[in-house]
C-alpha cells in the first residue's frame, strides 16, 4: 500500500531579503537596505490529522514562513511541499490544496455580505457557481453565521475571524495555514475558532497555526515549532515545551515570556 505524503514538509527553508539590484532600485520600493536573514535552514513536517503551532517573538520569521507556504513569497533556497506538491515549482496546484487565513481581517470585501464573500472566494478556489453557493451556505452554518448574513463592515472582529476561517475551508483543502487568527479576539471567540480548527484536523486534514499565545498553542496543537531569529529552535510536543523539560526549552520559554506570552 503506497504511503501518503506528509501534509506539509519543510526542508532547509531559507529566505534572505536583499536590497533591490542596481537596475531595479529606481523602480522597486523596498524597505530593505541590507541583507536580512528571515529564515535559515528551517525543517519540519506535519502529518495528516495534525495541528502544528508556530511560535516566536515578533520578527522571528513566522509570517515569512507562512507567506512562502501560501505561495506569496519565494524562498531563497530549500523547499516546502503541501501533500507532496512543491509550493514554489507548482504554485497553482499547491493553492488548490491550501486554505489560508492571513493576518488581520483585511482580506475580506467589507461592502459584500459574508455569503457573497464566500461565494466569490469559492469561485476563485475552483468551485462552480452552484457548488460555491451550496458550500458557502454550509460553511456559514458551520461557523455560526447562518442567520447573520449582512455586509461585512457590520460584522464584529470575531465574526470576521470566523468568516475568514470559513473562506479558508471553501474548497475542502488538505492543509490550513492560519496566521494569528485569534490576534484580535476575546477569549470566547478565540476558543470557538480553536475548536473549529481542532475539528478540521480531527476530520483528517492538517493545519499550521501561528500565534503569540503559548497557552492556546499548547491547548490545540499536537506539536509546536519555535522560531527565533529565523531558526527553528524547538520542534516537539507542547507539553515538553511547557514543562521546560530540557535546558533548551527552559531558555526558549524565558525568551518568549518577554515578548510572546499574553
Amino acid at each position, binding site marked *: 500500500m503506497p504511503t501518503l505524503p506528509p501534509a506539509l514538509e519543510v526542508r532547509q527553508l531559507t529566505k534572505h531579503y536583499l536590497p533591490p539590484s542596481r537596475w531595479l532600485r529606481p523602480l522597486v520600493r523596498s524597505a530593505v537596505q541590507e541583507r536580512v536573514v528571515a529564515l535559515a535552514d528551517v525543517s519540519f513536517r506535519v502529518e495528516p490529522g495534525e495541528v502544528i503551532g508556530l511560535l516566536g517573538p515578533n520578527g522571528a520569521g513566522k509570517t515569512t514562513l507562512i507567506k512562502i507556504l501560501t*505561495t*506569496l513569497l519565494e524562498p531563497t533556497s530549500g523547499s516546502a511541499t503541501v501533500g507532496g506538491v512543491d509550493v514554489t515549482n507548482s504554485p497553482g496546484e499547491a493553492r488548490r490544496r491550501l486554505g489560508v487565513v*492571513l493576518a488581520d481581517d*483585511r482580506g475580506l*470585501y467589507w*461592502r459584500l455580505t459574508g455569503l457573497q464573500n464566500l461565494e466569490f*472566494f469559492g469561485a*476563485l478556489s*475552483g468551485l462552480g457557481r452552484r457548488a460555491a453557493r451550496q458550500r458557502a451556505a454550509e460553511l456559514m452554518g458551520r461557523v455560526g453565521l447562518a442567520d447573520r448574513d449582512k455586509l461585512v463592515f457590520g460584522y464584529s472582529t470575531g465574526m470576521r475571524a470566523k468568516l475568514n476561517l470559513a*473562506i479558508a475551508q471553501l474548497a475542502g483543502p488538505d492543509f490550513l495555514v492560519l496566521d494569528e487568527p485569534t490576534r484580535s479576539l476575546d477569549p470566547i471567540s478565540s476558543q470557538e475558532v480553536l475548536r473549529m480548527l481542532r475539528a478540521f484536523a480531527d476530520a483528517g486534514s492538517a493545519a499550521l497555526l501561528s500565534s503569540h499565545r503559548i497557552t492556546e498553542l499548547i491547548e490545540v496543537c499536537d506539536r509546536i515549532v519555535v522560531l527565533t531569529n529565523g531558526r527553528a529552535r524547538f520542534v516537539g510536543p507542547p507539553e515538553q515545551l511547557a514543562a521546560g523539560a530540557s535546558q533548551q526549552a527552559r531558555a526558549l520559554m524565558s525568551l518568549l515570556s518577554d515578548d510572546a506570552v499574553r
Partner: protein
Amino acid sequence: MTNGVTWLTPIVAVARRDWAVRRSYQFDFALRLFGILAAVATFFFISKLVGSAPSLEGIEYFEFALVGLLVLNGATMAMNTLKGAIAQERSDGTLEMILSKPAPLWAVLSGTLVIPAMFFLLEAVVMLGFAVMFGSRFPIGGVLLGVPLLLLTLASFAVLGLLAAAFIVLTKRGEPITFVILQSTNFLAGAVFPVALLPIGLRFLAHLIPAFYGLNGLRAVLLEDAGAFDVLGDIVFLTVFTIVLAPIALWVLARALRVARVTGTLGSY
C-alpha cells in the same frame, strides 16, 4: 478545470462582486450622468465659437469633439480599471487573498473590466442621447458598427492598463504611466482637435496610438456614413495591436509579480 468550472468562472465571479459593490454606492451613476451632461454641454458651446473649421473637413466641431470625449472616457476607464484594481486590492488587503487562490490573475483582472465596460457603454448611449438633444443625428447603422470599434479601442487600452498594473506592482505608484499615456492620447490622437493641425513630426506619432484608429473609425461610421469596409484598416490595427501586445503585457505583469514575490513587496503599498 472540472465540475462546470471554466476560465469564465472567476471572470463572472469578479463581475458579480463588482456589481454587488457598485449597487451599494447608489448615487454614483446619477452623478456620472450629470458629469456627462456637463461635458457634452461644454463642447456644444465651444462649438458655437469654432463652428465647422476647414480642418474638420465638413464635420461640426461639436460632433467631432463628442467622439473624442467618448474615446477618451473609454481609454481612461480601461486603463484606470486595471491599474486601480491592483492598487485597490492591495490597499484593502485582498490582493494577497486573491493571489493565494488557484484562479489565474489574468482572469481576475479581465473580470474587473466587465462592469465598468458595461457602464461605459451605457454612458456612451446616454452621451449620444444628450448630443441628439442638442441637435446631432447619428445613423443607426453607424451606431451599431461603432460598438465593436469602441470595444476594440477599450481592449487596446486595457492592454496598456495591464502594463500600468505591472508598473504599480513594482513601484507602488501607477499614476505616472497612465498619466503619460492618457495625456499623449489627448494631445496626439486627435481627440479634441484634428491631427492635421499638428506639426508633421508629431502627426507620425499619432499613428502609434491606438486611440487614433478608434477615433478615425468612430468618426467615419458615426459622422460620415462610412461602412464596415471603409474602417477595415482601423479595425485591423486595433485588433493586431491588442493581440500582439496582450501576451507581452501579461508576461511583464507575471515578471513584476515574480519580482514582488522574491522581494517580499507583494502586499506593501
